[in-house]
């Protein structure tokens, strides 16, 4: 009997830690708390690729990126933009040198992204879910 009892909590602990392990690497999209627009992943992609300048409710959208060395960046590029970071850079080089667009501002880390998004009603950014604070609104992408 005893081994079984020990086994159960252990298993739960293992499960918990693995779940939180996944959760800490999860990327979330964040906006200003006052932003009530519905946002899906296609829109996030369009806004971050400079194809769309407004949210669905007609308000201006300002994408906030992070530097290439930030872990969230590669995840965002591959999962949301569906391109490697080099591909994204190539994409922007095409737009910049044809006068068609300016890439989003790149901030140093998640904390800087949260601070900027919290202070700007038009901002949209992404951070590791573990970094999220109450100052920003988390968007659930479907």
């Amino acid at each position: 009997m005893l081994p079984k009892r020990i086994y159960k909590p252990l298993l739960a602990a293992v499960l918990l830690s693995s779940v939180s392990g996944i959760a800490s690497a999860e990327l979330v999209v964040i906006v200003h708390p006052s932003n009530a627009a519905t946002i899906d992943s296609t829109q996030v992609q369009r806004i971050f690729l400079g194809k769309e300048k407004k949210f669905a409710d007609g308000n201006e959208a300002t994408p906030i990126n992070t530097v290439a060395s930030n872990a969230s960046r590669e995840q965002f590029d591959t999962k949301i933009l569906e391109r490697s970071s080099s591909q994204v850079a190539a994409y922007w080089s095409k737009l910049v040198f044809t006068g068609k667009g300016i890439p989003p501002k790149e901030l140093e880390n998640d904390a800087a992204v949260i601070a900027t998004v919290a202070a700007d009603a038009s901002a949209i950014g992404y951070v590791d879910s573990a970094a999220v604070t109450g100052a920003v609104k988390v968007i659930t992408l479907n």
Partner: protein
Amino acid sequence: MKKIITLSMLTMASFAGHAELRINGFANLVGGLTSSDETLYGYDDKMSFSQESLFAIQISGDINDKMTATGQLVARGENDYKAEFEWAYITYSATDKLNISAGRLRLPLFNYSTSKDVGYSYHWLTTPNVVYNVPFNNLDGVKFEYSDYAGDWEYNLSTALGTYKGESLGAINEGKNTYLLSAEASYEWFKIRGVFGATKATLDLATSDSPSTLGFAAGLAAMRAAGFVELEDALQIRDDTGKFLGLSLQVDKFDWFVTGEITSVDVEDSFAAKDIAYYVTAGIRHEKWTPSLTYQKFKSDPEIKFQNLINQIATSGLPAANIAQLTGLAIGGQLAQDDEYNVWSATIRYDLDTNVALKADISKLSDDSGDVRDATLVRFAVNYVF
């Protein structure tokens, strides 16, 4: 002294008055050589870095919320790195969907026209030379661009109007009243693009630096002097309508891609034959590596035009030798445009960093109308953007 102070104050005031000036740049360092005694794209069997290398700086600034001024200064190895403003234009964002640009800008002929010089932005070492090297890439004029969505489709319509100046057969080629319409639609991994353009072209053969073209020009002058004004007019490209057609299809599934583009250039009322050029390219992306294969084909298949006018030479009563000369010129000048060749290229791109790519390419030209021009070219490149 006073003037200088006023000037510098003005400059300061203007910088202070507007938002930041953006400075970006790109560079392609390209070196290449052919196998023995052959030439291709200007390269020969001695290593050269000057054929396709270029360095460019782009400066842009916001004039106000809706207007941006952009200048692109390009120094090309083939011009001894003399820097020139290849583009200088002002863009007015009329709405989020409509941009109007005026000045000197790239004519949106091809799928990769606008980023043709930015080697970093594509998988090739250079855009397919056979298709993209046309004498009318830059336009002095105005361009309207409209982009929007229809469900999951993104589309882009553009129209450009203006004049161009370029080089064909070593001679000055000018196009007035040039207009171009292009439409593009893309759905996730698929993109289709069509373009139609027309111009009033004039090719001043007498300005050529090629002896054979100058010979042709002298012959045409003699033809005119001998009284065959109508035929000479018909043969010359002088204020004649030139037409451009293009179609491109692109499938990009990220891990792999296939793109093809076909164009036709025709100045019907002239000695020139219709040119058909196309390429098909396919590649895969694996981590930092992008290997690809490209096939390019060029075909110019002349049929003898103006036969009625040419027949008049024979019945003109001129000495037989002159009749033979002028008839030969009218027919030979057209047949000389006969051309057919293809180029196979294998290219590899390696992403060294998010703003630096290294590339190597081997290209083999096969002359389909003989083997005189067959050549194999090896090139290496470093592409950089900042």
